[in-house]
């Protein structure tokens, strides 16, 4: 399940909804991304997340489908926010639930790595030196590359 929304989300409630009644689930891994107050040397007072409506949903759906193809998941969820956010605010939630913990951990890490390189979001940070578009991190490309399938 994927959701792209301006509103905040409730991690406990989402986890509960996703796992309730499914007793085949042995482990659920959640990742919550939060807005930091530091970017490089600059102080961040707020950020605005722009995205590409339509393509975002398409890409998140494809990424989630791919995770379910690769790992035996019982349930999965991606929520990504857009709009204006302040330090400490939640940006993104990924949950993967599986009979075994290894699959849940790997699938959640995979979703985050792919999301960082495939989901059309762009961050504009308000810093004490002005507003600035965040540059893509090389390390995110490297992190995503480790999931490439050979052949």
């Amino acid at each position, binding site marked *: 399940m994927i959701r792209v929304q301006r509103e905040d989300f409730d991690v406990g409630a989402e986890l509960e909804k996703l796992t309730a009644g499914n007793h085949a689930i042995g482990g659920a891994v959640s990742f919550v991304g939060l807005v930091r107050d530091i970017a490089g040397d600059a102080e961040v007072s707020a950020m605005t997340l722009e995205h*590409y409506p339509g*393509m975002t949903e*398409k890409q998140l759906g494809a990424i989630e489908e791919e995770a379910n193809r690769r790992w035996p998941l019982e349930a999965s969820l991606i929520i990504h926010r857009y709009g204006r956010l302040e330090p400490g605010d939640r*940006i993104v939630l990924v949950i993967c639930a599986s009979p075994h913990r290894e699959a849940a951990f790997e699938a959640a890490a995979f979703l985050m790595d792919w*999301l960082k*390189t495939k989901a*059309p*979001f*762009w961050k504009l940070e308000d810093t004490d030196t002005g507003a600035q578009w965040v540059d893509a991190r090389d390390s995110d490309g490297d992190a995503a590359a480790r999931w490439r399938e050979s052949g």
Partner: protein
Amino acid sequence: MKVLYFAWLKTKIGVGEEDVDPPADVRDIAGLVEWLKARGGGYAEAFAEVSVVKAAVNQEFAEPDQAIAAGDEIAFFPPVTGG
């Protein structure tokens, strides 16, 4: 053909979306970029360093040599930074 711009491409060009009607010899993403760049001003600035500009055709990531046609939705944007 609908063209969308995001993040600093949108800022530089000044619009987020426009309808364009390139000549028939503009057949792929690379050709469209050259044609837009030739408009000068914000376009020339936005596409100055073309290697850092990513593209999508009909909401799927696309390489410079991908063919485009009237009716397509083309988007240009910097590398994504979500998550």
